[in-house]
């Protein structure tokens, strides 16, 4: 998005302290087909799974998605047709499950695009977007073939030192989808543990939709403003979604649901096409609500994930 237009849109919005809480379905309805979407978290961590779940159920098409590292949510975005173009540095469920069969199938048959940037390049694209500058320089990707696949890059000689540098363009997605441990109704978001690229992503994006494990009072936010990582002025909507990253993890609250992810991987290995269709039908299209989805994941697994997740504070 053009810089002046981005600024104009930010300023045109009501940036007062106002209640922004809406439902998951209402949040999905904010996102039109074909827009660009930055996805918060990384790999199996703080994935905004509830929102992705709602977008897939809403039948959204052709979103151009960007995330630092992409796991099973990328497979589900491809397989549902919600996205056919992902920008990321790494894409598979996770190294312990091997190379993604679904990613392979969609890329090797030309049905979708996996645009590969180095991890730091993805981060600096969001950071440039957050800084309101059109690009940032970096010292990686030179000499490799990664850069030859990326027309939206430039190589320059530094005007001060003469050293070679790569320039990567700012990424200001139309939407950012970010899951956090807690935020207030205004969108002041507090993130525990690994922040990944989420602060830059939130500031860079035109519109930010937060999902949160729980909504806390503004008083509670003001008691520890140093813990607030995303300011309310940057946030458009807030959705309360407990276990909103499941079957992925949310730092300090629950670890990945490993048994579910192992079973998912086995199903995809057996038959990527039918396997993922069956998975989407069962876990994405059939439940009537997010709570019903969690019910399908199973209380035993959720409790186990919770026990493992909170054990990080045992030391």
């Amino acid at each position, binding site marked *: 998005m053009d810089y002046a237009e981005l600024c104009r849109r930010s300023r045109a919005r009501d940036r007062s302290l106002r209640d922004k809480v809406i439902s998951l379905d209402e949040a999905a309805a904010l996102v039109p087909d074909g827009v660009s979407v930055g996805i918060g978290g*990384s*790999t*199996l*961590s703080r994935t905004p799974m509830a929102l992705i779940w709602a977008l897939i159920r809403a039948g959204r098409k052709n979103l151009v998605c960007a995330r*630092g*590292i992409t*796991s099973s949510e990328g497979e589900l975005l491809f397989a549902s047709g919600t996205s056919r173009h992902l920008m*990321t*540095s*790494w*894409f*598979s469920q*996770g*190294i*312990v499950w091997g*190379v*993604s069969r679904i*990613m*392979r199938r969609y*890329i*090797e048959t*030309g049905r979708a695009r*996996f645009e*590969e*940037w*180095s*991890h*730091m390049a993805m*981060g*600096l694209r*969001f*950071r440039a977007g957050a800084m309101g500058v059109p690009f940032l320089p*970096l*010292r*990686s*990707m*030179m*000499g*490799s*073939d*990664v850069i030859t*696949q990326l027309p939206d890059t430039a*190589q320059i000689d530094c005007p001060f030192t003469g*050293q*070679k*540098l*790569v320039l990567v363009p700012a990424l200001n997605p139309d939407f950012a989808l970010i899951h956090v441990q807690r935020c207030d109704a205004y969108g002041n978001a507090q993130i525990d*543990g*690994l*922040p*990944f*690229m989420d602060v*830059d992503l939130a500031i860079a994006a035109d519109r930010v939709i937060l999902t949160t494990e729980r909504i806390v009072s503004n008083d509670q936010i003001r008691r520890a403003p140093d813990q607030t990582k995303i300011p309310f002025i940057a946030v458009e909507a807030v959705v309360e979604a407990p276990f909103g990253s499941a079957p992925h*993890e949310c*730092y*300090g609250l629950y*670890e*990945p649901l490993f048994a579910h992810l192992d079973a998912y991987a086995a199903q995809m290995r057996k038959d990527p096409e039918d396997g993922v269709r069956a998975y989407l039908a069962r876990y994405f299209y059939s439940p009537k609500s997010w709570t019903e989805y969690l019910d399908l994941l199973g209380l035993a697994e959720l409790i186990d994930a919770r026990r493992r*997740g909170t054990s*990080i504070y045992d030391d």
Partner: protein
Amino acid sequence: MTTDAPDYTASELIAVMSARQLRDGQVVFAGVGIPLLAATLAQRLHAPGLTILFEGGVIGAFIEPGKLPPSTNEQRCTHRANMVLGSTDVLLLLQRGYVDIGFMGGAQIDPYGNLNSSFIGDPQHPSTRLPGTGGGNDIASLTEMIVAMKHEKRRFVERVDFVTSPGFLSGGNSRREAGLIAGGMHRVVTDLGIFGFEESSKRMQLQALHPSVTADDVQSNTGFELLIAADLTVTAPPTESELAVLRHLDPDRLYTA
């Protein structure tokens, strides 16, 4: 030569041999899998002061035995860490020059240490699309590298199909001329031996053989002509204590099957 099969797997051998490459006090940027495991092993053996960085945004973690993370982006990676920070920021520390060693696995490597983890076949119409660089390109571009991988002819090739993470590119000064001022390949550790890179040509050079492996074994499992160091040595086999600690860290053999 004894015909008894060694009582460790190829992955365990790689983990032990690469852990020995790390020195106490170093700052190591480790990828998931064998690198994470070997760096953690080194901490528990000879390098308690080894500082491990993960691209998920972690400085100075001590991974808990039996709780290996599924990638370098989960809370398990933060166990007893000194700091968590943004993934962009930890990669910028690398660019700033705070890291001694980058430590990664590899799918395919060439004589100059260039690594491919992106495409088998033509990138426009790949026969296999691999998961991609992650932070691999950044790490290989910016610091000295140790690569740990299985030694197979299909992985050690004359030319990689795609340079995901740069080694010495086409050798000589080509890496520097491409603009990569820092870093470069330091060691490749496999289940057959340990390799460095010859100083002027920057070609891979066999430096040490693992017990009961011959230079011919290595060459016949390599898809390009290997240089062999004049002072070729033989490594000491993994000790019982090294293997015991390793198995304590990875009791389910998540990374060392």
